[in-house]
């Protein structure tokens, strides 16, 4: 589903995708940068928020720096006819930050449900993964946890060049 955005919206995205100005009137600053009216900028951003083009506005915490050193990508082989219910249940757990249905590539990659699990260390992540396994029961046809060992690149999404 695409939201209709115009060239002016794209200019607003380009200057805000890295963050909002940390000044008392951030939207007026953006407007001044782009030669727009502050009310126009606020109306457009509110419309993008309402339509889902903006997911949310706020702080993006850095898990690693905040002491959550255990970040495991748990991957599950769940029967296709059970994926929706399983995904909704697992996605609602408070230690899961992302939960998606993704395609398998058998035989190398039999997994179709991805859930990012966060904890202070690996042991805490492992314990949470056991919790997910217990919830899935017989629907868990196999799972693994892929821990990251190195961040090779992290520039964040640049949606508009």
């Amino acid at each position, binding site marked *: *589903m*695409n*939201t209709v955005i115009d060239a002016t919206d794209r200019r607003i995205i380009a200057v*805000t*995708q890295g*963050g*909002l100005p*940390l*000044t*008392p*009137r951030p*939207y*007026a600053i953006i407007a001044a940068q782009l030669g727009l009216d502050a009310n126009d900028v*606020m109306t457009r951003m*509110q419309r*993008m*928020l309402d*339509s*889902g*083009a*903006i*997911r*949310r*506005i*706020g*702080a*993006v*915490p850095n*898990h690693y720096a*905040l002491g959550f050193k255990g970040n495991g*990508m748990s991957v599950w082989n769940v029967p296709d006819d059970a994926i929706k219910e399983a995904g909704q249940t*697992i*996605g609602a757990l*408070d230690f*899961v*930050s*992302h*939960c*998606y249905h*993704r*395609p398998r*590539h058998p035989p*190398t*990659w039999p997994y179709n449900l*991805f859930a990012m699990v*966060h904890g202070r260390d690996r042991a805490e992540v492992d314990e949470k993964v056991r919790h997910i396994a217990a919830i899935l029961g017989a629907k868990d046809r196999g799972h*693994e946890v*892929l821990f990251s*060992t*190195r*961040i*090779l*690149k*992290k520039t*964040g*999404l*640049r*949606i*508009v*060049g």
Partner: protein
Amino acid sequence: MDTRDATIINQLQGGFPITERPYAEVAKTLEITEKELIERLENLLAEGLLSRFGPMYHAERLGGGLTLAALHVPDEGFDRVAEQVNHFPEVAHNYQREHHLNMWFVLATETAERIDEVLTEIEQKTGCRVYNVPKIEEFFVGLRFEL
């Protein structure tokens, strides 16, 4: 970082207002001044405890492409392949993970069509097969991150 910083991080992961003086509004609910809130956010960003403060855009709803993909890279060529993959500006994140598929990256492109082109270019450049796992359905995205 003190308990007030923790409160800011816990309460400000979404819902930042789109109004003339948004920091002043939020500061009021936190019972601090606008100036203190701005200074604390500046410090949290400078110290790297926050990676960003602002709007999080939904790439696909803006007509862009987004996917997750993995490679199996032999140990001896790992750093060279990492450099080749990272060289693509469309690669937003790239992580080494403990698995046969040991390199996982997120690709964000300005158009949806560009995803397949970049993945083909990455295969040609690295000589590694790309396992593309675009999302079929999203069940949850967000951070209910409590300090």
